[in-house]
């Protein structure tokens, strides 16, 4: 064996040793990370994954004529029924379309209202920024139900809003128990979930890029559409998901401000469980809703990740 090849063997050996050490360090890091995440994992499994599995299992169960649920005779009846309703333009189809439209409108309004606010806040001095963010979060200090009932007072005939429109000569308005009231309530409830991710992504934008675009003959408006919007896209996507998902399944706001005149998805599920006592039907709707939302979220984040 020549000296050269001996050296080569020694080099290979030391490289292998180095790689081993690196692998072990990485393994230790992963183990430590897992231990730190354990309480969160535990909580999620106990209160999210297990209930979800229960819902999943119930969706295949049989409804007894007495209103109880038999955990036997597993079948796809409830899914079949939902499919029939959708393809036959039945009640469930109407509920689905109505809820989807409401959630979409709410999301668009939140985006239109939230973006200027988030942009303004993100471009202020740190003190003003923090004050504006606190202002966004203040409503969370009051109970969600209380805030919805407050809107009921504001919107009712003879309430402050109605008095105001009367005073300026527009006549009495009775918004309560209309779709407008539901959209208003949903927008009010979920606007912070739009503003916060928008703020986070706009605040992260490197303003030198905007300066660069201005230097490259772009007008202020073009800088906004060609540089600021694309760079805040992750915030737009995250905010839209965070508003659309809870709006679609919202229960409290449509009940209180819609007055139960029209059924939305949330109320539909509750009715299946409590009024119709058809647990498999309620469970199947819940589960489908969740799968649709989860897959939409995954698709959104994947494509969002590729854009940046």
């Amino acid at each position, binding site marked *: 064996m020549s000296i050269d090849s001996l050296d080569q063997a020694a080099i290979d050996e030391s490289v292998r040793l180095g790689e081993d050490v690196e692998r072990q360090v990485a393994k230790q890091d992963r183990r430590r990370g897992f231990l730190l995440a354990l309480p969160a994992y535990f909580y999620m499994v106990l209160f999210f994954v297990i209930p979800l599995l229960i819902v999943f299992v119930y969706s295949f169960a049989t409804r007894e004529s007495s209103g109880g649920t038999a955990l036997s005779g597993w079948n796809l009846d409830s899914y079949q029924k939902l499919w029939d309703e959708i393809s036959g333009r039945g009640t469930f189809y109407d509920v689905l379309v109505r809820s989807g439209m409401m959630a979409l409108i709410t999301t668009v309004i939140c985006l239109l209202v939230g973006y200027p606010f988030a942009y303004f806040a993100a471009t202020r001095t740190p003190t003003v920024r923090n004050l504006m963010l606190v202002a966004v979060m203040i409503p969370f200090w009051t109970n969600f139900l209380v805030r919805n009932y407050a809107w009921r007072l504001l919107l009712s005939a003879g309430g402050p809003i109605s008095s105001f429109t009367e005073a300026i000569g527009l006549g009495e308005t009775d918004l309560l128990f209309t779709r407008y009231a539901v959209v208003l309530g949903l927008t009010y409830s979920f606007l912070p979930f739009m503003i916060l991710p928008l703020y986070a992504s706009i605040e992260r934008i*490197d303003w*030198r*890029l905007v*300066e*660069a*675009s*201005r*230097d*490259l*003959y*772009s*007008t*202020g408006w*073009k800088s906004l559409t*060609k*540089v600021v919007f*694309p*760079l805040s*896209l992750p915030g737009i996507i995250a905010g839209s998901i965070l508003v659309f998902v809870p709006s679609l399944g919202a229960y409290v706001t449509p009940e209180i401000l819609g007055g139960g005149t029209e059924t939305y998805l949330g109320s539909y599920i509750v009715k299946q469980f409590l009024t119709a006592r058809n647990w498999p039907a309620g469970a199947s709707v819940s589960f489908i809703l969740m799968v649709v939302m989860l897959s939409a979220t995954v698709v959104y984040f994947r494509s969002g990740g590729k*854009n*940046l």
Partner: protein
Amino acid sequence: MRALTKRFDDVVAVDAVDLDIADGEFFALLGPSGCGKTTTLRMIAGLEIPSAGSLKIFGDEVGTLPPNKRPVNTVFQNYALFPHMSVADNVAFGLKMQKVPKADVASRVAEAIGLVRLGGMEQRRPSQLSGGQQQRVALARALVNRPKVLLLDEPLAALDLKLRQGMQMELKSLQREVGITFVFVTHDQEEALSMADRIGVMGDGVLLQVGTPEDIYDSPVNQFVADFIGRSNFLPGTVEAENLVCLSNGSRITVGHAGAVGDAVAVSLRPERVRMENLGEAPEDRPTLEGVVQSVTFLGNSIVYQIALDWLTIEARTENRPSVDRRDVGESVSIWWRDDAVAVVPG
């Protein structure tokens, strides 16, 4: 520009700067960080609005025009490439904003990318490029618009030494090729000396001296400039006659031009112009001082000595050549210099 001034609240960042930059010139604004050179550049670009004064580009007053209305483009310090666009889209951005016809955009972008030798990289994202490549994209993105003036804000600061030296040469030849006026901001005196046709030295918001690299190095107007561009020893003294300075240790030395009689001055003596001999062996008709070697620093191509005189310490630099004697710590030496090797600056 005339009396160009920028104030931030109470702080005067740029104070009444008068400066003419010629067409096709490679001009470097040099100064320590915080001296106002970047603010001056940003005023030319239109990213800062001057508080007072006038700024003309090719005879047109542009002082308050927004940046998109100026025939000027900038290469930013950290390049500021758009991360959500490909290299080609980054380069095409300025042309699209000016509504240049599509066919022209394509050919000019291809030409600019070829100019900075990035052919084949058109579809990459900036994050997939090395620092040097990003730098070239930033250059192409600015040059493709054929600006009348190209502003460069410390464009090489983020590159490592080897790459930086390579880019210096490239920038210089690129500037000759395109014939556009370059205004280059840097705090690196070597960069300014090696690339610029003329240099403006700034300190504390004031333009201290404008001249060719040789002018500024050989005849600095004051101690700040002399010390910022290269290194220098300052020997304090008083002017006794047109070409005679009495140093504060009592010795009299002749200089080229001293200034008004009675003025307190400092004689600026560059380390590499200090000559060293064995004690008492200096030429008799030259200014001579005696001292002891206090420290020796080996730098590879040169050797730096700190020589303690009885009233101050002088730095001397000799080349690392076999024909130049090495000195040791503690050795007594005579130092001398030619009359024309020094510059007299206000004390």
